[in-house]
């Protein structure tokens, strides 16, 4: 219900408020202005947004948007941050690339940065096969343990990463070719069964038996060359240790027999032409740090020390 004041303005009696003058079926709208602080804040926001649209990218056009007079972009900011970060890391990386790998662990601080860098690179390049915790899976070696097919000191790890394992096209790749004794008919099925029994006695998984005794002779003739007379492996040939608790392709009788019959032979790419030397060095440090890393043999250390001026 609205009344008209002498000055012509209409106002609502119940609330003593002016109305805006519009009317719909007897319903009128009260004129309750916005609080002033609110209004001024609103105007300030408008002014701010005009400025914002001028200096920052704002208006989408056909192929790309306006760029803003400050030239800021989120991609540009990321690029700046990356280059700043690279600049920050440059001296550390330079030092890492210059130090001989035998000396890498001498400086704990340097080793720590190498491990941190390696951990990041591992997450990008290695987890696909070796797993996020580097614990591997059947066929993909576990890098945490102390069983190394090709050697577990820093230099050996670095070599393996650079040249890969059975990587076609790299002449220096780590290469071991176990014959497919069953598939190629080198041994009869019975001989393979006996050999399997013998191999499983090496790590105490099976007790000695007539079969294992028969298998021992076959082992002597066919396997000892690469796996060693006692089955403890030969790293020079990449012959795995058969006398320990760790089995790359499984320790069950069936798995071992299958490896003799027609061995699986895993391939690791050579990373030497994919990653830069510093990243590979950091990866080596990280893998070495996982708990199974081996120390250099004394001879290698003396040799490295001699090379130093």
């Amino acid at each position, binding site marked *: 219900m609205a*009344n008209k004041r002498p000055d012509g303005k209409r106002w609502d009696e119940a609330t003593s408020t002016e109305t805006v003058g519009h009317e719909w079926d007897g319903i009128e709208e009260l004129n309750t202005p916005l609080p002033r602080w609110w209004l001024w804040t609103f105007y300030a926001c408008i002014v701010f947004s005009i400025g914002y649209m001028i200096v920052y990218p704002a208006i989408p056009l056909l192929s790309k948007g306006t760029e803003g007079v400050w030239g800021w972009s989120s991609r540009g900011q990321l690029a700046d941050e990356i280059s700043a970060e690279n600049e920050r890391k440059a001296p550390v990386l330079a030092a890492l690339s210059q130090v001989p790998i035998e000396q890498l662990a001498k400086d704990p601080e340097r080793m720590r940065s190498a491990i941190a860098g390696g951990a990041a690179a591992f997450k990008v390049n290695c987890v696909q096969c070796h797993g996020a915790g*580097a614990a591997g899976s059947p066929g993909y070696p576990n890098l945490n*343990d102390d069983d190394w097919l090709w050697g577990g000191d820093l230099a050996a790890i670095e070599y393996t990463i650079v040249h890969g394992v059975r990587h076609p096209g790299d002449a220096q790749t780590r290469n071991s070719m176990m014959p497919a004794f069953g598939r190629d008919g080198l041994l009869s099925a019975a001989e393979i069964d006996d050999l399997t029994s013998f191999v499983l006695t090496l790590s105490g998984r099976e007790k000695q038996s007539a079969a294992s005794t028969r298998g021992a002779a076959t082992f002597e003739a066919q396997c000892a060359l690469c796996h060693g007379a006692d089955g403890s492996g030969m790293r020079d040939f990449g012959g795995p240790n058969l006398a320990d608790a760790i089995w790359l392709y499984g320790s069950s009788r069936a798995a071992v027999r299958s490896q003799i019959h027609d061995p699986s032979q895993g391939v690791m790419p050579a990373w030497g032409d994919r990653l830069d030397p510093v990243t590979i060095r950091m990866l080596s440090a990280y893998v070495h740090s996982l*708990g199974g890393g081996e120390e250099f043999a004394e001879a290698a250390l003396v040799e490295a020390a001699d090379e130093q001026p």
Partner: protein
Amino acid sequence: MNNPEKIPGQEPGGDITDQPLQLYAKREPVFNRRIDGPFRRLKWAIMAITLAVYYVTPWLRWDRGPFAPDQAVLVDLANRRFYMFGIEIWPHEFYFVAGLLIMAGIGLFLVTSAVGRAWCGYSCPQTVWTDLFQHVDRLVDGDRNARARLHKAPWGASKIARRLFKWAIYLAISVVTGGAWILYFADAPTLFRDFFTGDAPFVAYATVGVLTATTFVLGGFMREQVCIYMCPWPRIQTAMLDEKSLIVTYKDWRGEPRGSVKKAEKNPGAFGDCIDCNQCVAVCPTGIDIREGQQIGCITCALCIDACDRVMKETGRERGLIDYATLEDCETEKAGGTAPPILKTVLRPRTLIYAGVWGGIGLGLLFLLGVRTHTDLTVAQDRNPPYMLMSDGSVRNAYTLKLRNMEARPREMTVSLDGLPGAVMWSDDIPRSAAARELVRKVPADATATMRAYVVVPAGAADQDFSFVVRSGDEQGETDSSETRFVTPGGEQ
């Protein structure tokens, strides 16, 4: 007319002259008069103390040796340390700060229930800085009447000059206020120098800018509006005050009806003590009339008591027409009785319980402060992989240990295994060939060292709990331990 119905007594289009109610009340500026008296002097003293504490504290030095800053009070956000004289708080000890904040909260409850809005009246920064700015007004523009005159005067060269001069002083005070704040967060002399040479971090300038702006606006212009409209504390206090809380009260039974001295002389007995001189209104920093009774605008600064007491003295009447009193005392006095001594009013169960809780928390914090060690150990077990089979059949678990050395000097710490028979461990910088049940690690001063521990247990062990124990290698021999678990492929067995 849009409404065909007629309402009796309200003829449509009738003669309506009342203005519509306004929801918006324009602020009446406050020009409070200078006053002297015991409460004013108390306010001066509290202002001097609080401002001195605020400005001087960051400059105090406290020797903590070569490995820690020498600033007595420092909130080192960058390094996550809080220094307060001999006390150093680490982030994991933040409960001390939480405890202090709880004490501050309960302290406000205690003060409010005992002496009413004393916080508002004397020590609230808004009050202190408003008071300061009002003194600047007085210094530049003169006392109450001069300021009111200048306010009404049209804008001219002289008024503009005066205003600019006054605002410049406001701004100077504001900059100093904002500037002092940042000195608590970094080494004060260094930051002070860097601030003027342009080498200080951006956040320092931004903080000073924001605090300068808030001081300038809140202290220079908004003043009592902050207390009346913005601050939640007065609203909470109105719920906390009871009939036994001290408030500033006008004793209306004694003052009413009001009459000038002359009128009272002509008509002895017809008038109360209030001579309606309006001095209580003139001195009020929030511009209220205390004689209207309790109201949210009253911050109980007691300047009106000073003003009224002086008038009462000049007119030869008893002081205390406006006075600190409880509502209960007022009732007693009104009925002709005598109010109990103030101490008795203040010491009542409610205040005593608040004081007890407050003191209890304080003693608890002091106790914790006394018995806390400066060596700490936390252990996180590797989850991926959870365990590792070694080639000889033994099982290895890996752990990440955090060794905290909270002393301002480097210390050696010995980490050992408690439980887990047959186990040995090695670390990232200690090779497996040197594995032992006890490893020594040097931890830098006032720092946390991260240490990897590879614990290996002979073949055949089952899952079990055990603890890492750390012991500082100095004469203090502080220890801490952290229980964790060793998992094996065999599980519980």
